[in-house]
């Protein structure tokens, strides 16, 4: 099932001679269970694409469709509700609320959506446990946990509830290589369980966890790999 569909999406900043074409006629579909990596040099439109996919920005032309709903048909209130319920974000700098504990951060989208505090906390503890954080960490504040634990908290928050689209912008930013890899494994696992993931990264090692890689240059999708099928094929070259 298609979770995210970008249909001929363009984003232009400014107009006339000063127009900047941040994204040009992007076509992209992501199915449930799929992790897609977006690669490209700085300024190629990766973050623009991610912001449009998550409804944080609106396209100049084209349509962004999340779980069958064209975002342009939604009021601001309904768009905010769709983002809360269907879309999770993982940022490079975690974006946790510093005055809330890990569990409160993870529970935030559910509480904003009207769920009771007790029920939301229970769901948050389960989500944190799933990303490898125990109850002891759950009651710590962001500045009391390591970078890896903070990013795990952000992933728990991104995927809590029924959200099946996770958008990650350089999610391993300041983490060391093994901790960063743990974060990628979590994203991979959630996609294997049915979420659709869009991962923006500079790092080829991280793109290696994706099913498909889309290359952007100057706002255009210039290449897109087909999904992997037979992992054994590479062994011919390794022997």
């Amino acid at each position, binding site marked *: 099932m298609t979770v995210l569909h970008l249909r001929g999406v363009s984003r232009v900043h400014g107009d006339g001679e000063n127009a900047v074409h941040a994204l040009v006629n992007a076509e992209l579909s992501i199915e449930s269970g799929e992790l897609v990596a977006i690669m490209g040099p700085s300024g190629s439109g990766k973050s623009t694409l991610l912001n449009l996919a998550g409804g944080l920005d609106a396209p100049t032309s084209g349509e962004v469709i999340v779980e069958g709903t064209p975002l342009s048909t939604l009021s601001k209130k309904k768009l905010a509700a769709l983002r809360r319920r269907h879309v999770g974000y993982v940022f490079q700098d975690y974006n946790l609320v510093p005055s809330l504990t890990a569990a409160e951060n993870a529970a935030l989208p559910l509480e904003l959506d009207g769920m009771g505090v007790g029920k939301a906390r229970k769901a948050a503890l389960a989500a944190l446990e799933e990303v490898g954080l125990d109850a002891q960490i759950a009651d710590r504040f962001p500045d009391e946990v390591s970078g890896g634990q903070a990013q795990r908290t952000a992933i728990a928050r991104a995927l809590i509830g029924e959200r099946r689209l996770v958008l990650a912008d350089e999610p391993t930013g300041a983490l060391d290589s093994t901790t960063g890899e743990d974060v990628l494994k979590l994203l*991979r696992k959630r996609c294997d369980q049915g979420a659709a993931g869009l991962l923006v990264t500079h790092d080829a090692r991280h*793109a*290696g966890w*994706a099913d498909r*890689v889309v290359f952007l240059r100057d706002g255009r999708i210039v290449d897109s*790999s087909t999904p992997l099928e037979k992992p054994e094929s590479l062994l011919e*070259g*390794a022997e």
Partner: protein
Amino acid sequence: MSVKHSLLALLERGPAYGYQLRAAFESATGSTWPLNIGQVYTTLSRLERDEMVEALPENESGQRPYRITEAGKRHLAGWFASPVRAADRPRDELTIKLALAVTTPGVDVADVIQRQRAATLRTLQEYTRLKADDSADLAWKLVLESMIFRAEAEIRWLDHTEAVVARAELPAPSPFGHYEPDPETSAPLEEKR
């Protein structure tokens, strides 16, 4: 490393003699892989047999230049359009391919880089998938890690090369000028002949 493809790429600039080809190859690759002149002439003979180059009439100095044929051009285009497989890389063919791509007329360097990047990334994806298998033993995982790091390094180098090429104003590759033999380097050939 493919001497055959390297010579075809150099001949795309225009007809040339064996010594000119050797000098141009070493110049294009920073003399990293010295070519034996005998190897150059042997390869040219095979290319002539396969109708990918043709020998032109000797000039007054007794030098016989070679010219790439249409079949040779097609073969060369096919080489540039195909990614190098890791298994086919006893010497670094990719480095040579890119060094020649920036000096060969009509080659879309960005396209050569992107094809390679996509192919290398795909290999990296496959390695990663194998590594994610928790039943793999540690030694195998370490070998996979090594291959992943090599692939990553290659992709980073390709990214860097793409940026450098994009910024550089590529000079038009100059056709070969009049050949002036160097008495020292030409002597062995005379002896061979």
